[in-house]
């Protein structure tokens, strides 16, 4: 029907983890929700991160957020704050925490947790409406999150 917030590109099969990849259940959040350690050890690719943020079928962050850097992407949502200047307001570790699991930073946030795989109420199998079984594939994989973070730190006013 609507698919406001897109499917991750990850397929059902777990992505083959590189040696340093931190699994969703093993991510360490500090008291304020930041994640210091890179999820992959591989530096993020900001250009790819921008593509994921704007892509309906990937992060689809624009479903809820507007940002001038992606002004060519139509239909940006109004649910969350503008992302312009996010790189001034938040450190890299904070941004990683917000994208991986926003609820650790903003209690009760409406923003989905992109790197979380269990603890859901009636988890589904993607957008099929059928039951899924936990652990679910995360909405984004570890490197996609690193790419997004690399992009977000470039958002300076």
């Amino acid at each position, binding site marked *: 029907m609507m698919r406001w917030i897109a*499917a991750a590109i990850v397929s059902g099969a777990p992505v083959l983890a590189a040696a340093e990849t931190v699994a969703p259940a093993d991510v360490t959040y500090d008291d304020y929700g930041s994640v210091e350690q890179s999820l992959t050890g591989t530096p993020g690719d900001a250009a790819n991160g921008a593509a994921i943020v704007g892509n*309906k079928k990937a992060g689809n962050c624009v479903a809820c957020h507007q940002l001038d850097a992606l002004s060519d992407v139509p239909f*940006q949502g109004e649910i969350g704050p503008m992302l312009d200047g996010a790189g001034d307001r938040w450190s890299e570790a904070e941004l990683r925490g917000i994208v991986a699991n926003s609820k650790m930073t903003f209690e009760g946030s*409406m923003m989905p947790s992109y790197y979380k795989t269990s603890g859901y*109420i009636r988890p589904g199998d993607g957008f099929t409406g059928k039951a899924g079984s936990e652990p679910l594939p995360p909405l984004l994989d570890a490197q996609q999150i690193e790419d997004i973070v690399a992009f977000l730190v470039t958002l300076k006013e």
Partner: protein
Amino acid sequence: MKFKAMTAVAALLVAAPMLGMADEEAELVVNGEIEMVTKTDAPAHLEGALPEIMSGWRFRSDETQQTQMDDFDNPGMIFVDQAQAVWDTAEGSEGKSCASCHNDVEAMEGVRAVYPKWNEEAGEVRTLAMQINDCRETQMGAEPWKYDGSDMTAMEALISVQSRGMPVNVAIDGPAQSVWEQGKEMYYTRYGQLELSCANCHEDNYGNMIRADHLSQGQINGFPVYRLKNTKLNSSHARFKGCIRDTRAETFSPGSPEFVALELYVASRGNGLSVEAPSVRN
């Protein structure tokens, strides 16, 4: 005049966020005579949750809004006409039609406005669809219709038309209360991998855009609704199913006890809005 002409002028004055966007201040008058309440004070049970309630009609584009202002333009009315013929057609082992027991369909005036409703004899909260199927099975000896199939939505629309303009007024106390509480709990439950509740979108964010969709309050006073997208009448349960599925959750089935409870609760959030069916949506 078919509709209040302020619409166009107001749209130019207000800083409209997007071209062709809804005019949330427009008023709905159908056929130049049925004045619909599309915005009013929230019922007492919503105190603290919503200051006022608004029909989904207010959130649609000018063109979609207009389609609902005249029955000749409203494609949903075709199905109402079809159901009128079915109303008079005998079916089932008893050789009866709806008209055999209820006479003219005008006798259904006021019915839509109070459903879902507690049925004392059956000891259950009944939706209009459940009642229609009970008539078919018990009174007519006919096969029940698919809960949200096209026969059913058309008959629901025909019955709803008899109450157009009347305020929704479902009872939430007495024996219906526990079902209502169940529906309320569902409304605030954050289902699925996206962990989103009905309230996240339709209470906290109505009026905002989520991607290309202009969020309404998710009211059901206009159901069944004709959608330009799938060119048929759609039941509220089909809508609930779509909304829950899109949170990446395991959804519930149309006609399930859970959706009956949710319908009662969501209907009660619209107490005071006019019965509008068949509404038109994109």
